């Protein structure tokens, strides 16, 4: 399915190549495919529509750059808008002036809260802090045991109260304990819950009020579908979340829910979880996420190469003290996606676009040659 979408997009990019103007028709044709690609990646239906409408408005109103073929330029705009949206807010973990810093992890069942709590604790410990993990999932059988084992692996103390029945009381006691014993960060692992379960959501609100966390972080499974929006909105509405941790990014999910959630909450992604080992918590890279969601690694590669060629040519022209109009550039440039007179439809496929599997597409962005420093418009 995805392959065919990508194939169709390439056809469109190709069809539009070399015309030099971004007409409304060109933009619409490319954006139709972009929208489908976003939906396939699990970007929410309404978010995808709003996003595409925004790019359309910007694209049609924009002065046409002649470096790229129109279809490529639309994809470039889409990509840049994705990166901007995903990365525009700051995303560093904030610490309280007066320790302990209290961090509350919330999310649905099975999102990966406990593993994430362990990873976060280990990361903080390695950074010279003294975190305390708190087990407040009193509902799921053996959830406390799980956190205790994880804490042991991370070399971090786990606070729990045997036979406790009230998670809020446990959380409050833990903050007191941390203050007494000089732990500077308290990580509260809460029980998973459906965001439409009013009773359990009310419990979290009480816990928030009782422990005044400095950060409430929503743990979001990268495989989440269309409901990501409603989940995040509800958690944010009731708890005012400060940011996200996206889990299970070592799989092959495209992760479109991340875009949906960032779009509707305006909250940043702080970390991403990869793998089950406790060192698998990494900083968030908006460019990688954008590329993964869009899934058009091939097209993006070609755009970047074209961009690089443009920059090189421009530099050469400037060296020769010859400034030419953009239109002239277009014809002179070795643009990999603009088929020459003899190039059949295989122009792209036989070129240097990577034709690998999902993994290659996903990681392609990292390994590609970036434009020379200062040379690109990034």
């Amino acid at each position, binding site marked *: *399915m995805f392959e065919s*979408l990508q194939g169709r997009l390439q056809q469109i990019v190709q069809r539009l190549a070399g015309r030099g103007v971004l007409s409304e028709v060109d933009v619409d044709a490319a954006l139709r495919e972009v929208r*489908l690609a976003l*939906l*396939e*990646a*699990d970007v*929410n*239906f*309404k978010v995808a529509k709003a996003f595409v409408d925004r790019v359309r408005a910007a694209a049609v109103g924009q002065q046409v750059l002649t470096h790229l073929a129109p279809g490529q330029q639309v994809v470039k705009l889409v990509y840049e808008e994705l990166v901007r949206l995903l990365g525009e807010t700051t995303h560093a973990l904030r610490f309280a002036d007066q320790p302990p810093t209290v961090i509350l992890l919330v999310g*649905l*069942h*099975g*999102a*990966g809260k*406990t593993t994430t709590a362990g990873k976060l604790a280990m990361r903080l410990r390695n950074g010279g802090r003294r975190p305390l993990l708190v087990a407040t999932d009193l*509902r*799921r*059988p*053996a*959830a*406390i*045991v*799980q*956190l*205790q*084992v*994880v804490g042991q*692996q991370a070399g971090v103390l786990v606070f729990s109260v045997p036979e406790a029945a009230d998670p809020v009381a446990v959380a409050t006691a833990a903050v007191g304990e941390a203050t007494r014993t000089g732990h500077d960060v308290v990580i509260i692992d809460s029980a998973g819950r*459906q*965001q*439409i379960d009013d009773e359990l959501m009310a419990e979290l609100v009480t816990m928030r009020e009782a422990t005044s966390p400095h950060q409430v972080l929503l743990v979001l*499974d990268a*495989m*989440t*579908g*269309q*409901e990501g929006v*409603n*989940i995040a909105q509800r958690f944010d509405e009731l708890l005012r979340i400060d940011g996200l941790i996206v889990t*299970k990014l*070592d*799989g*092959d*999910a*495209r992760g*479109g*829910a991340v875009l949906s959630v960032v779009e509707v909450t305006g909250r940043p992604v702080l970390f991403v979880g990869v793998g*089950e080992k406790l060192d698998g918590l990494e900083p968030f890279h908006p460019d990688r996420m954008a590329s993964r969601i869009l899934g058009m690694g091939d097209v993006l590669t070609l755009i970047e190469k074209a961009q690089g060629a443009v920059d090189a040519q421009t530099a050469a022209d400037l060296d020769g003290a010859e400034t030419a109009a953009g239109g002239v550039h277009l014809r002179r440039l070795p643009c990999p996606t603009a088929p020459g007179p003899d190039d059949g439809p295989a122009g792209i496929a036989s070129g240097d676009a990577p034709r690998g599997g999902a*993994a290659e597409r996903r990681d392609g962005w990292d390994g590609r040659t970036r434009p020379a420093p200062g040379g690109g418009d990034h």
Partner: protein
Amino acid sequence: MNWLDRLRESLARTRAQLTARLGEIVGAPPAEFFQQLEAALIEGDVGVATTQHILRQLSDRRDARDPAARLAVLREILLDILGAPAPLRLDPPPAAVLMLGVNGAGKTTTIGKLAHHLKTSGRTVLLAAADTFRAGAIDQLAIWAQRAECELVRHAPGADPAAVVYDAAQAVKARGIDVLIADTAGRLHTKTNLMEELKKINRVLTRELPGSPVERLLVLDATTGQNAIAQARVFTEAVGVTGIVLAKLDGSAKGGVVLAVRTALGLPVKFVGLGEGLDDLQPFDPPQFVDALLTA
């Protein structure tokens, strides 16, 4: 109010809203109706390809040209994709159920509920704690075994999961137990070594219970989007999945991706999970599912 009541109530609301959402525009020009329908299906995680497939089928049906008949025809198309209810194949005993899925899908909880479900229908059950990897998984299953009042075979954390399954198979044969349910560690389908481990578990199970029916159930989180298709494909290639358990359907997600999974791989949904209580596992009911899917 218990989960079942909640579900019933929400389904009652569902029917009302179905009329509200698609019923209101049922007489609208086809373009608008199809647009709304596309939105409803995509927002239910049905996915682009399957949604297009459904819309095409609907627009090809002559009897759907009459606006009054549109919804009925649509339901018929969706029910046709889902197929007839597919009960577990457990006879002749001893039978085995291998529970599969990615991390956090809901395997262990599903096993506890399935054990109770089978006990209630008069079968004896033994659980095999073959998730020896995740912290606390064995203890979690032990508590479910207690709740469902069934037997448990467990090894120490970190033990070979295939060895646990081997011992469980011997125990089932020796004690004349009807059903063995094996838990497995959650694994992302992209981890080749873990999928190899799963094949080994499956081989041992099949070899030690020759001639026994073996259900290999893939647990899908209803909140999961299109990645469920890749999960189903890879797990099927590895061990031959026989059915889907759609877990966590008590949330707001519709789980529409099972339509895509069914279309791509022909896998039937056998159960849905509706909560964390012992009784919160129900045989899949296609008409209820379709009604919920078409709700805004």
